[in-house]
Protein backbone atom coordinates (compact mmCIF):
# COMPACT_ATOMS: atom_id res chain seq x y z
CA UNK A 1 0.00 0.00 0.00
CA UNK A 2 1.12 3.55 -0.71
CA UNK A 3 0.35 5.84 2.20
CA UNK A 4 0.72 9.56 1.66
CA UNK A 5 0.64 11.81 4.67
CA UNK A 6 0.47 15.64 4.65
CA UNK A 7 2.65 15.71 1.56
CA UNK A 8 3.84 19.16 0.51
CA UNK A 9 5.75 20.68 -2.38
CA UNK A 10 6.61 24.32 -2.86
CA UNK A 11 8.29 26.06 -5.74
CA UNK A 12 9.45 29.29 -4.18
CA UNK A 13 6.45 30.45 -2.18
CA UNK A 14 3.89 28.78 -4.37
CA UNK A 15 2.47 25.59 -2.95
CA UNK A 16 2.08 23.09 -5.77
CA UNK A 17 1.01 20.27 -3.49
CA UNK A 18 -0.68 21.38 -0.31
CA UNK A 19 -0.85 18.83 2.51
CA UNK A 20 -2.27 15.89 0.63
CA UNK A 21 -3.03 12.74 2.58
CA UNK A 22 -4.39 9.62 0.97
CA UNK A 23 -3.96 5.89 0.71
CA UNK A 24 -3.58 4.02 -2.54
CA UNK A 25 -4.79 0.45 -2.15
CA UNK A 26 -2.84 -2.58 -3.35
CA UNK A 27 -3.84 -4.57 -6.37
CA UNK A 28 -5.96 -1.81 -7.93
CA UNK A 29 -5.73 0.80 -10.64
CA UNK A 30 -5.91 4.28 -9.20
CA UNK A 31 -6.19 7.20 -11.60
CA UNK A 32 -5.15 10.70 -10.69
CA UNK A 33 -7.14 13.29 -12.59
CA UNK A 34 -7.65 17.01 -12.36
CA UNK A 35 -7.33 20.22 -14.37
CA UNK A 36 -3.99 21.41 -15.74
CA UNK A 37 -1.68 22.60 -13.00
CA UNK A 38 -3.45 20.63 -10.30
CA UNK A 39 -0.17 18.97 -9.28
CA UNK A 40 -0.84 15.48 -10.66
CA UNK A 41 2.63 14.84 -12.07
CA UNK A 42 4.30 16.44 -9.07
CA UNK A 43 2.40 14.11 -6.77
CA UNK A 44 3.45 11.10 -8.81
CA UNK A 45 7.04 12.35 -8.90
CA UNK A 46 7.20 12.65 -5.14
CA UNK A 47 5.76 9.17 -4.66
CA UNK A 48 8.51 7.83 -6.89
CA UNK A 49 11.36 9.90 -5.29
CA UNK A 50 12.16 11.61 -8.63
CA UNK A 51 10.95 14.94 -7.20
CA UNK A 52 12.08 16.15 -3.77
CA UNK A 53 9.33 16.87 -1.30
CA UNK A 54 9.18 19.77 1.13
CA UNK A 55 7.18 18.09 3.86
CA UNK A 56 5.08 15.12 4.83
CA UNK A 57 5.80 11.49 4.08
CA UNK A 58 5.26 8.78 1.50
CA UNK A 59 5.23 5.24 2.81
CA UNK A 60 5.49 2.29 0.48
CA UNK A 61 4.75 -0.97 2.22
CA UNK A 62 5.07 0.89 5.53
CA UNK A 63 8.58 2.19 4.77
CA UNK A 64 9.26 5.80 3.76
CA UNK A 65 10.61 6.13 0.20
CA UNK A 66 13.58 7.99 1.66
CA UNK A 67 14.48 5.02 3.84
CA UNK A 68 14.29 2.47 1.06
CA UNK A 69 17.51 1.15 -0.37
CA UNK A 70 17.47 2.73 -3.84
CA UNK A 71 18.16 -0.48 -5.67
CA UNK A 72 15.60 -2.39 -3.62
CA UNK A 73 12.92 0.22 -4.26
CA UNK A 74 13.63 -0.05 -7.98
CA UNK A 75 12.49 -3.69 -7.78
CA UNK A 76 9.22 -2.68 -6.12
CA UNK A 77 8.31 0.56 -7.84
CA UNK A 78 8.74 1.68 -11.42
CA UNK A 79 7.84 5.04 -12.90
CA UNK A 80 7.45 6.34 -16.41
CA UNK A 81 7.29 10.11 -16.73
CA UNK A 82 5.62 12.14 -19.42
CA UNK A 83 8.79 14.12 -20.14
CA UNK A 84 11.09 11.13 -20.42
CA UNK A 85 12.78 10.86 -23.71
CA UNK A 86 16.05 9.10 -24.26
CA UNK A 87 18.59 10.93 -26.40
CA UNK A 88 20.86 7.94 -26.71
CA UNK A 89 20.55 5.93 -29.89
CA UNK A 90 19.38 2.51 -28.70
CA UNK A 91 17.08 -0.22 -29.91
CA UNK A 92 13.81 -1.25 -28.33
CA UNK A 93 15.46 -4.41 -27.09
CA UNK A 94 18.23 -2.42 -25.39
CA UNK A 95 15.72 -0.07 -23.79
CA UNK A 96 13.64 -2.91 -22.44
CA UNK A 97 16.84 -4.60 -21.27
CA UNK A 98 17.62 -1.58 -19.11
CA UNK A 99 14.46 -2.41 -17.16
CA UNK A 100 16.36 -5.38 -15.73
CA UNK A 101 19.15 -3.21 -14.34
CA UNK A 102 17.98 -3.31 -10.71
CA UNK A 103 18.25 -7.10 -10.79
CA UNK A 104 21.31 -7.80 -12.85
CA UNK A 105 23.21 -4.48 -13.00
CA UNK A 106 23.68 -4.85 -16.72
CA UNK A 107 24.75 -8.50 -16.89
CA UNK A 108 21.63 -10.10 -18.29
CA UNK A 109 20.85 -13.65 -17.20
CA UNK A 110 18.72 -16.25 -18.96
CA UNK A 111 15.83 -15.28 -16.64
CA UNK A 112 16.25 -11.60 -17.57
CA UNK A 113 16.11 -12.41 -21.26
CA UNK A 114 12.88 -14.34 -20.81
CA UNK A 115 11.30 -11.40 -19.02
CA UNK A 116 12.52 -9.00 -21.71
CA UNK A 117 11.00 -11.20 -24.43
CA UNK A 118 7.75 -11.41 -22.52
CA UNK A 119 7.55 -7.64 -22.03
CA UNK A 120 8.26 -7.00 -25.71
CA UNK A 121 5.57 -9.52 -26.65
CA UNK A 122 3.10 -7.93 -24.23
CA UNK A 123 3.43 -4.56 -25.95
CA UNK A 124 3.28 -6.13 -29.40
CA UNK A 125 6.76 -4.97 -30.41
CA UNK A 126 8.09 -8.36 -31.51
CA UNK A 127 8.47 -7.40 -35.17
CA UNK A 128 10.39 -4.17 -34.50
CA UNK A 129 12.45 -5.14 -31.46
CA UNK A 130 15.73 -4.31 -33.20
CA UNK A 131 14.54 -0.91 -34.50
CA UNK A 132 16.13 2.22 -33.04
CA UNK A 133 13.95 4.44 -30.89
CA UNK A 134 14.46 7.48 -33.11
CA UNK A 135 13.07 5.55 -36.08
CA UNK A 136 9.74 4.81 -34.39
CA UNK A 137 6.42 6.59 -34.45
CA UNK A 138 5.30 8.30 -31.27
CA UNK A 139 2.98 5.45 -30.39
CA UNK A 140 5.57 2.73 -30.95
CA UNK A 141 8.06 4.63 -28.84
CA UNK A 142 5.54 5.00 -26.04
CA UNK A 143 4.90 1.26 -26.12
CA UNK A 144 8.63 0.60 -25.99
CA UNK A 145 8.96 2.76 -22.86
CA UNK A 146 6.08 0.91 -21.27
CA UNK A 147 7.63 -2.44 -22.16
CA UNK A 148 10.77 -1.38 -20.28
CA UNK A 149 8.68 -0.60 -17.20
CA UNK A 150 7.07 -4.03 -17.50
CA UNK A 151 10.50 -5.64 -17.71
CA UNK A 152 11.38 -3.93 -14.45
CA UNK A 153 8.75 -6.25 -12.99
CA UNK A 154 7.73 -4.05 -10.08
CA UNK A 155 4.71 -4.49 -7.88
CA UNK A 156 3.91 -0.79 -8.09
CA UNK A 157 3.80 0.85 -11.50
CA UNK A 158 3.44 4.62 -11.74
CA UNK A 159 2.62 6.06 -15.14
CA UNK A 160 2.55 9.74 -15.95
CA UNK A 161 0.19 10.32 -18.87
CA UNK A 162 1.04 7.08 -20.66
CA UNK A 163 -1.68 7.63 -23.24
CA UNK A 164 0.17 10.53 -24.81
CA UNK A 165 0.94 9.67 -28.42
CA UNK A 166 -1.31 6.62 -28.42
CA UNK A 167 -4.26 6.52 -30.77
CA UNK A 168 -7.64 5.22 -29.59
CA UNK A 169 -6.89 1.63 -30.52
CA UNK A 170 -3.59 1.46 -28.67
CA UNK A 171 -4.89 3.58 -25.79
CA UNK A 172 -7.73 1.21 -25.06
CA UNK A 173 -5.56 -1.85 -25.67
CA UNK A 174 -2.98 -0.42 -23.37
CA UNK A 175 -5.49 0.12 -20.59
CA UNK A 176 -6.74 -3.44 -21.08
CA UNK A 177 -3.17 -4.61 -20.57
CA UNK A 178 -2.96 -2.58 -17.36
CA UNK A 179 -6.22 -4.19 -16.27
CA UNK A 180 -4.75 -7.62 -16.95
CA UNK A 181 -1.61 -6.79 -15.01
CA UNK A 182 -3.74 -5.85 -12.03
CA UNK A 183 -6.22 -8.70 -12.28
CA UNK A 184 -3.78 -11.50 -13.14
CA UNK A 185 -0.47 -10.41 -11.66
CA UNK A 186 -1.81 -8.40 -8.72
CA UNK A 187 0.14 -5.27 -9.66
CA UNK A 188 -0.73 -1.91 -8.19
CA UNK A 189 -0.96 0.81 -10.81
CA UNK A 190 -1.18 4.54 -10.32
CA UNK A 191 -1.77 6.53 -13.44
CA UNK A 192 -2.00 10.23 -14.22
CA UNK A 193 -4.45 10.63 -17.01
CA UNK A 194 -6.28 13.42 -18.79
CA UNK A 195 -9.10 11.54 -20.44
CA UNK A 196 -11.69 11.20 -17.74
CA UNK A 197 -13.61 8.51 -19.65
CA UNK A 198 -10.59 6.24 -19.91
CA UNK A 199 -10.10 6.74 -16.20
CA UNK A 200 -13.72 5.87 -15.52
CA UNK A 201 -13.79 2.75 -17.69
CA UNK A 202 -10.60 1.11 -16.56
CA UNK A 203 -9.72 2.19 -13.05
CA UNK A 204 -10.95 1.12 -9.63
CA UNK A 205 -10.35 4.36 -7.79
CA UNK A 206 -10.06 7.96 -8.86
CA UNK A 207 -8.13 10.70 -7.09
CA UNK A 208 -9.35 14.18 -7.97
CA UNK A 209 -6.89 17.00 -7.48
CA UNK A 210 -7.50 20.71 -7.74
CA UNK A 211 -4.94 23.47 -7.20
CA UNK A 212 -2.61 21.22 -5.25
CA UNK A 213 -5.27 19.96 -2.89
CA UNK A 214 -7.06 16.66 -2.70
CA UNK A 215 -10.59 17.44 -3.87
CA UNK A 216 -12.00 13.96 -3.54
CA UNK A 217 -10.94 10.35 -3.68
CA UNK A 218 -13.31 7.50 -4.19
CA UNK A 219 -14.55 4.69 -6.38
CA UNK A 220 -15.39 5.45 -9.97
CA UNK A 221 -19.08 5.68 -9.10
CA UNK A 222 -18.46 8.20 -6.34
CA UNK A 223 -16.37 10.48 -8.54
CA UNK A 224 -18.30 10.18 -11.79
CA UNK A 225 -21.01 12.45 -10.51
CA UNK A 226 -21.87 15.52 -12.51
CA UNK A 227 -21.96 17.74 -9.43
CA UNK A 228 -18.53 16.64 -8.21
CA UNK A 229 -16.92 17.11 -11.59
CA UNK A 230 -18.57 20.46 -12.31
CA UNK A 231 -17.14 21.71 -9.06
CA UNK A 232 -13.61 20.73 -10.04
CA UNK A 233 -13.49 21.68 -13.68
CA UNK A 234 -15.84 24.70 -13.61
CA UNK A 235 -17.83 23.53 -16.61
CA UNK A 236 -21.08 21.66 -17.17
CA UNK A 237 -20.97 17.84 -17.21
CA UNK A 238 -23.40 15.19 -18.21
CA UNK A 239 -22.69 11.68 -16.92
CA UNK A 240 -24.28 8.86 -18.91
CA UNK A 241 -24.36 5.13 -18.32
CA UNK A 242 -23.36 3.12 -21.38
CA UNK A 243 -23.06 -0.68 -21.19
CA UNK A 244 -22.70 -0.47 -17.42
CA UNK A 245 -19.85 2.04 -17.64
CA UNK A 246 -20.11 5.66 -16.66
CA UNK A 247 -19.20 8.04 -19.46
CA UNK A 248 -19.02 11.75 -19.23
CA UNK A 249 -20.16 14.06 -21.98
CA UNK A 250 -18.61 17.47 -21.68
CA UNK A 251 -18.55 19.00 -25.09
Amino acid at each position, binding site marked *: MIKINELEKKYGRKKVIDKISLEIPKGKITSIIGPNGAGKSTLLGMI*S*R*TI*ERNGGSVLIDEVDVKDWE*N*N*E*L*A*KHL*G*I*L*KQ*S*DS*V*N*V*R*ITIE*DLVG*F*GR*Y*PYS*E*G*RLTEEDRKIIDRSIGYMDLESIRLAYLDELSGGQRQRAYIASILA*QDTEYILLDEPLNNLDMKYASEFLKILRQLVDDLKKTIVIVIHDINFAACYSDFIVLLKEGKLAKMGTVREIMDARVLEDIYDMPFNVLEVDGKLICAYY
Partner: protein
Amino acid sequence: MRLKLSLMGIVSLAAVIFLLSWQVNIEILGYVLSKRSIKVLAILLSAWSIGSATLVFQTITGNRILSPSILGLDSIYILFQLLAVMLIGRFSPLATNPYVNYIVTTILMCLFSSLLYQRVFSKKKSIFSVVLIGVVMGTFFSSITGMLQMIMDPDAYTMALDRLFASFNDVEEDLLLLSSIIVSLVVVQFYRNHHLLDVIALGKNYAVNLGIEYDKEVKKLLVMIFLLISVSTALVGPITFLGFFAVNITKTYLKTHKHRILIWGTVFMATITLLISQILVEHVFGFGLPISILISIFGGTYFIALLLRESAA
Protein backbone atom coordinates in the same frame (compact mmCIF):
# COMPACT_ATOMS: atom_id res chain seq x y z
CA MET B 1 32.28 -4.13 -33.32
CA ARG B 2 35.20 -6.06 -31.92
CA LEU B 3 36.83 -5.84 -35.31
CA LYS B 4 36.49 -2.08 -35.51
CA LEU B 5 37.86 -1.73 -32.02
CA SER B 6 40.87 -3.92 -32.77
CA LEU B 7 41.44 -1.93 -35.94
CA MET B 8 41.62 1.25 -33.89
CA GLY B 9 44.01 -0.46 -31.50
CA ILE B 10 46.25 -1.59 -34.35
CA VAL B 11 46.36 1.88 -35.92
CA SER B 12 47.35 3.44 -32.58
CA LEU B 13 50.02 0.79 -32.10
CA ALA B 14 51.37 1.43 -35.59
CA ALA B 15 51.55 5.16 -34.91
CA VAL B 16 53.39 4.49 -31.65
CA ILE B 17 55.93 2.34 -33.44
CA PHE B 18 56.36 4.94 -36.17
CA LEU B 19 57.03 7.71 -33.69
CA LEU B 20 59.48 5.54 -31.77
CA SER B 21 61.45 4.17 -34.67
CA TRP B 22 61.29 6.66 -37.55
CA GLN B 23 64.75 7.66 -38.74
CA VAL B 24 66.33 6.31 -35.63
CA ASN B 25 70.09 6.49 -35.35
CA ILE B 26 71.24 2.98 -34.42
CA GLU B 27 74.41 4.17 -32.67
CA ILE B 28 72.56 6.10 -30.01
CA LEU B 29 69.53 3.82 -29.99
CA GLY B 30 69.20 3.60 -26.23
CA TYR B 31 69.25 7.36 -25.74
CA VAL B 32 66.86 8.10 -28.57
CA LEU B 33 64.41 5.41 -27.50
CA SER B 34 64.32 6.58 -23.92
CA LYS B 35 63.72 10.17 -25.06
CA ARG B 36 61.08 9.18 -27.52
CA SER B 37 59.29 6.75 -25.27
CA ILE B 38 58.78 9.49 -22.69
CA LYS B 39 57.16 11.57 -25.37
CA VAL B 40 54.95 8.70 -26.53
CA LEU B 41 53.97 7.89 -22.98
CA ALA B 42 52.98 11.51 -22.40
CA ILE B 43 50.84 11.39 -25.52
CA LEU B 44 49.15 8.17 -24.43
CA LEU B 45 48.51 9.66 -21.03
CA SER B 46 46.81 12.78 -22.39
CA ALA B 47 44.79 10.73 -24.84
CA TRP B 48 43.58 8.40 -22.10
CA SER B 49 42.68 11.11 -19.67
CA ILE B 50 41.15 13.66 -22.02
CA GLY B 51 39.34 11.03 -24.11
CA SER B 52 37.74 9.16 -21.25
CA ALA B 53 37.00 12.31 -19.23
CA THR B 54 35.16 13.86 -22.16
CA LEU B 55 33.20 10.68 -22.84
CA VAL B 56 32.01 10.45 -19.25
CA PHE B 57 31.31 14.18 -19.10
CA GLN B 58 29.10 13.95 -22.19
CA THR B 59 27.33 10.95 -20.71
CA ILE B 60 26.55 12.85 -17.52
CA THR B 61 25.35 15.98 -19.31
CA GLY B 62 23.60 14.07 -22.09
CA ASN B 63 25.15 16.44 -24.61
CA ARG B 64 27.39 15.62 -27.53
CA ILE B 65 29.20 18.91 -27.91
CA LEU B 66 30.28 19.64 -24.37
CA SER B 67 33.70 18.84 -23.03
CA PRO B 68 35.10 19.22 -19.53
CA SER B 69 37.19 22.21 -20.58
CA ILE B 70 33.93 24.13 -20.34
CA LEU B 71 34.23 23.86 -16.58
CA GLY B 72 37.00 26.43 -16.73
CA LEU B 73 39.89 24.21 -15.68
CA ASP B 74 42.02 25.21 -18.65
CA SER B 75 41.56 28.89 -17.99
CA ILE B 76 42.55 28.44 -14.37
CA TYR B 77 45.67 26.71 -15.53
CA ILE B 78 46.58 29.53 -17.92
CA LEU B 79 45.81 32.23 -15.39
CA PHE B 80 47.93 30.49 -12.82
CA GLN B 81 50.88 30.14 -15.16
CA LEU B 82 50.79 33.85 -15.95
CA LEU B 83 50.40 34.82 -12.32
CA ALA B 84 53.29 32.60 -11.32
CA VAL B 85 55.64 34.35 -13.73
CA MET B 86 54.30 37.80 -13.03
CA LEU B 87 53.85 37.97 -9.31
CA ILE B 88 56.35 35.56 -7.93
CA GLY B 89 58.97 36.27 -10.54
CA ARG B 90 60.16 34.42 -13.54
CA PHE B 91 63.17 32.98 -11.74
CA SER B 92 61.23 31.63 -8.76
CA PRO B 93 60.96 27.84 -8.41
CA LEU B 94 57.26 28.07 -9.20
CA ALA B 95 58.03 29.29 -12.70
CA THR B 96 61.22 27.40 -13.40
CA ASN B 97 60.95 24.13 -11.49
CA PRO B 98 58.54 21.84 -13.35
CA TYR B 99 57.94 19.63 -10.31
CA VAL B 100 56.83 22.48 -8.10
CA ASN B 101 54.79 23.92 -10.93
CA TYR B 102 53.07 20.59 -11.67
CA ILE B 103 52.20 19.82 -8.10
CA VAL B 104 50.95 23.31 -7.28
CA THR B 105 48.84 23.59 -10.46
CA THR B 106 47.30 20.16 -10.01
CA ILE B 107 46.38 20.87 -6.41
CA LEU B 108 45.03 24.28 -7.33
CA MET B 109 42.83 22.96 -10.13
CA CYS B 110 41.49 20.11 -8.01
CA LEU B 111 40.86 22.52 -5.15
CA PHE B 112 39.00 24.98 -7.31
CA SER B 113 36.86 22.35 -8.99
CA SER B 114 35.91 20.66 -5.73
CA LEU B 115 34.96 24.07 -4.32
CA LEU B 116 32.86 24.75 -7.38
CA TYR B 117 31.03 21.48 -7.35
CA GLN B 118 30.62 21.42 -3.59
CA ARG B 119 28.92 24.79 -3.50
CA VAL B 120 26.73 23.84 -6.37
CA PHE B 121 25.85 20.36 -5.19
CA SER B 122 25.21 21.37 -1.61
CA LYS B 123 22.31 23.41 -2.92
CA LYS B 124 21.01 20.48 -4.94
CA LYS B 125 21.40 22.20 -8.25
CA SER B 126 21.31 20.24 -11.46
CA ILE B 127 24.34 19.31 -13.52
CA PHE B 128 23.49 22.15 -15.89
CA SER B 129 24.00 24.74 -13.19
CA VAL B 130 27.45 23.25 -12.67
CA VAL B 131 28.16 23.62 -16.37
CA LEU B 132 26.79 27.14 -16.49
CA ILE B 133 28.78 28.29 -13.48
CA GLY B 134 31.83 26.66 -15.05
CA VAL B 135 31.32 28.65 -18.25
CA VAL B 136 30.96 31.92 -16.35
CA MET B 137 34.03 31.22 -14.22
CA GLY B 138 36.01 30.20 -17.29
CA THR B 139 35.17 33.45 -19.05
CA PHE B 140 35.99 35.39 -15.90
CA PHE B 141 39.43 33.81 -15.62
CA SER B 142 40.20 34.25 -19.30
CA SER B 143 39.30 37.93 -19.05
CA ILE B 144 41.75 38.37 -16.21
CA THR B 145 44.30 36.46 -18.24
CA GLY B 146 43.72 38.75 -21.20
CA MET B 147 44.23 41.79 -19.04
CA LEU B 148 47.43 40.39 -17.54
CA GLN B 149 48.82 39.66 -20.99
CA MET B 150 48.34 43.30 -21.89
CA ILE B 151 50.18 44.70 -18.94
CA MET B 152 52.92 42.18 -18.34
CA ASP B 153 56.55 42.38 -19.29
CA PRO B 154 57.03 40.89 -22.80
CA ASP B 155 60.01 38.79 -21.70
CA ALA B 156 58.08 37.24 -18.88
CA TYR B 157 55.17 36.67 -21.21
CA THR B 158 57.32 34.79 -23.68
CA MET B 159 58.41 32.55 -20.86
CA ALA B 160 54.90 31.84 -19.69
CA LEU B 161 53.75 31.35 -23.28
CA ASP B 162 55.84 28.24 -23.48
CA ARG B 163 53.60 26.54 -20.96
CA LEU B 164 50.34 27.74 -22.42
CA PHE B 165 50.49 25.49 -25.43
CA ALA B 166 50.51 21.77 -24.98
CA SER B 167 53.81 20.18 -25.79
CA PHE B 168 55.04 16.64 -25.50
CA ASN B 169 58.66 17.46 -26.12
CA ASP B 170 59.68 18.50 -22.65
CA VAL B 171 57.93 16.33 -20.09
CA GLU B 172 59.49 15.31 -16.80
CA GLU B 173 59.94 11.59 -16.35
CA ASP B 174 58.98 11.29 -12.69
CA LEU B 175 55.86 13.39 -13.10
CA LEU B 176 54.90 11.21 -16.01
CA LEU B 177 55.09 8.10 -13.88
CA LEU B 178 52.96 9.62 -11.13
CA SER B 179 50.39 10.89 -13.62
CA SER B 180 50.24 7.55 -15.41
CA ILE B 181 49.35 5.79 -12.20
CA ILE B 182 46.56 8.26 -11.40
CA VAL B 183 45.17 8.24 -14.93
CA SER B 184 45.17 4.48 -15.39
CA LEU B 185 43.49 3.99 -12.01
CA VAL B 186 40.70 6.38 -12.93
CA VAL B 187 40.19 5.01 -16.44
CA VAL B 188 39.98 1.47 -15.07
CA GLN B 189 37.43 2.76 -12.56
CA PHE B 190 35.37 4.18 -15.44
CA TYR B 191 35.58 0.86 -17.21
CA ARG B 192 34.47 -1.09 -14.16
CA ASN B 193 31.41 1.17 -13.99
CA HIS B 194 30.47 0.82 -17.64
CA HIS B 195 26.99 -0.54 -16.92
CA LEU B 196 26.33 2.35 -14.59
CA LEU B 197 27.45 4.82 -17.28
CA ASP B 198 25.08 3.18 -19.77
CA VAL B 199 22.17 3.86 -17.44
CA ILE B 200 23.26 7.40 -16.52
CA ALA B 201 23.32 8.20 -20.24
CA LEU B 202 19.56 7.60 -20.30
CA GLY B 203 19.00 10.63 -18.10
CA LYS B 204 18.26 11.33 -14.48
CA ASN B 205 14.67 10.09 -14.32
CA TYR B 206 15.58 6.73 -15.79
CA ALA B 207 18.62 6.33 -13.61
CA VAL B 208 16.69 7.11 -10.44
CA ASN B 209 13.87 4.82 -11.47
CA LEU B 210 16.36 2.01 -12.02
CA GLY B 211 17.65 2.40 -8.50
CA ILE B 212 20.81 4.39 -9.03
CA GLU B 213 21.82 6.95 -6.44
CA TYR B 214 22.14 9.51 -9.15
CA ASP B 215 23.48 12.54 -7.32
CA LYS B 216 26.08 10.52 -5.46
CA GLU B 217 27.29 8.68 -8.55
CA VAL B 218 27.45 11.82 -10.69
CA LYS B 219 29.42 13.59 -7.97
CA LYS B 220 31.91 10.73 -7.89
CA LEU B 221 32.26 10.75 -11.67
CA LEU B 222 32.75 14.53 -11.76
CA VAL B 223 35.55 14.32 -9.21
CA MET B 224 37.24 11.70 -11.35
CA ILE B 225 36.86 13.93 -14.42
CA PHE B 226 38.39 16.89 -12.55
CA LEU B 227 41.30 14.72 -11.52
CA LEU B 228 41.96 13.50 -15.05
CA ILE B 229 41.80 16.94 -16.61
CA SER B 230 43.92 18.54 -13.89
CA VAL B 231 46.61 15.92 -14.20
CA SER B 232 46.85 16.02 -17.96
CA THR B 233 46.65 19.81 -18.22
CA ALA B 234 49.32 20.32 -15.60
CA LEU B 235 51.57 17.85 -17.36
CA VAL B 236 51.37 18.93 -20.99
CA GLY B 237 49.11 21.97 -21.11
CA PRO B 238 45.58 22.45 -22.38
CA ILE B 239 44.42 20.69 -25.54
CA THR B 240 40.96 21.96 -26.43
CA PHE B 241 38.78 19.99 -28.86
CA LEU B 242 40.73 16.74 -28.55
CA GLY B 243 38.14 15.08 -26.32
CA PHE B 244 35.23 16.44 -28.29
CA PHE B 245 36.78 15.26 -31.54
CA ALA B 246 37.68 11.79 -30.28
CA VAL B 247 34.34 11.07 -28.60
CA ASN B 248 32.23 12.15 -31.55
CA ILE B 249 34.26 10.36 -34.17
CA THR B 250 34.18 7.23 -32.03
CA LYS B 251 30.42 7.39 -31.51
CA THR B 252 29.85 7.89 -35.22
CA TYR B 253 32.21 5.08 -36.13
CA LEU B 254 31.28 2.46 -33.55
CA LYS B 255 27.52 3.23 -33.47
CA THR B 256 26.93 1.87 -30.01
CA HIS B 257 25.74 3.20 -26.69
CA LYS B 258 27.68 0.66 -24.64
CA HIS B 259 30.41 2.28 -22.58
CA ARG B 260 32.26 -1.02 -22.35
CA ILE B 261 33.19 -0.42 -26.00
CA LEU B 262 32.99 3.39 -26.14
CA ILE B 263 35.61 3.90 -23.43
CA TRP B 264 38.27 1.97 -25.30
CA GLY B 265 37.15 3.37 -28.63
CA THR B 266 37.52 6.93 -27.38
CA VAL B 267 40.86 6.27 -25.77
CA PHE B 268 42.17 4.72 -28.98
CA MET B 269 40.73 7.51 -31.12
CA ALA B 270 42.27 10.20 -28.94
CA THR B 271 45.58 8.35 -29.09
CA ILE B 272 45.46 8.11 -32.86
CA THR B 273 44.57 11.80 -33.21
CA LEU B 274 47.36 12.93 -30.92
CA LEU B 275 49.96 10.61 -32.40
CA ILE B 276 49.18 11.60 -35.97
CA SER B 277 49.22 15.27 -35.02
CA GLN B 278 52.57 14.80 -33.34
CA ILE B 279 53.93 13.02 -36.42
CA LEU B 280 52.71 15.93 -38.55
CA VAL B 281 54.25 18.46 -36.18
CA GLU B 282 57.59 16.65 -36.25
CA HIS B 283 57.88 15.49 -39.81
CA VAL B 284 55.78 17.90 -41.85
CA PHE B 285 55.90 21.16 -39.98
CA GLY B 286 59.34 20.62 -38.50
CA PHE B 287 58.22 21.60 -34.96
CA GLY B 288 57.05 24.94 -36.32
CA LEU B 289 53.50 24.53 -35.10
CA PRO B 290 52.33 23.72 -31.56
CA ILE B 291 50.39 20.47 -31.50
CA SER B 292 47.43 22.01 -29.67
CA ILE B 293 46.91 24.46 -32.51
CA LEU B 294 46.93 21.66 -35.04
CA ILE B 295 44.32 19.77 -33.03
CA SER B 296 42.21 22.88 -32.62
CA ILE B 297 42.19 23.24 -36.39
CA PHE B 298 40.98 19.63 -36.85
CA GLY B 299 38.63 19.67 -33.91
CA GLY B 300 37.31 23.15 -34.53
CA THR B 301 36.46 22.37 -38.13
CA TYR B 302 34.72 19.19 -37.10
CA PHE B 303 32.88 21.04 -34.34
CA ILE B 304 31.50 23.57 -36.80
CA ALA B 305 30.62 20.84 -39.29
CA LEU B 306 28.72 18.96 -36.59
CA LEU B 307 26.87 22.09 -35.50
CA LEU B 308 25.84 22.82 -39.08
CA ARG B 309 24.68 19.26 -39.62
CA GLU B 310 22.68 19.21 -36.39
CA SER B 311 20.99 22.50 -37.19
CA ALA B 312 20.19 21.29 -40.71
CA ALA B 313 18.63 18.07 -39.42
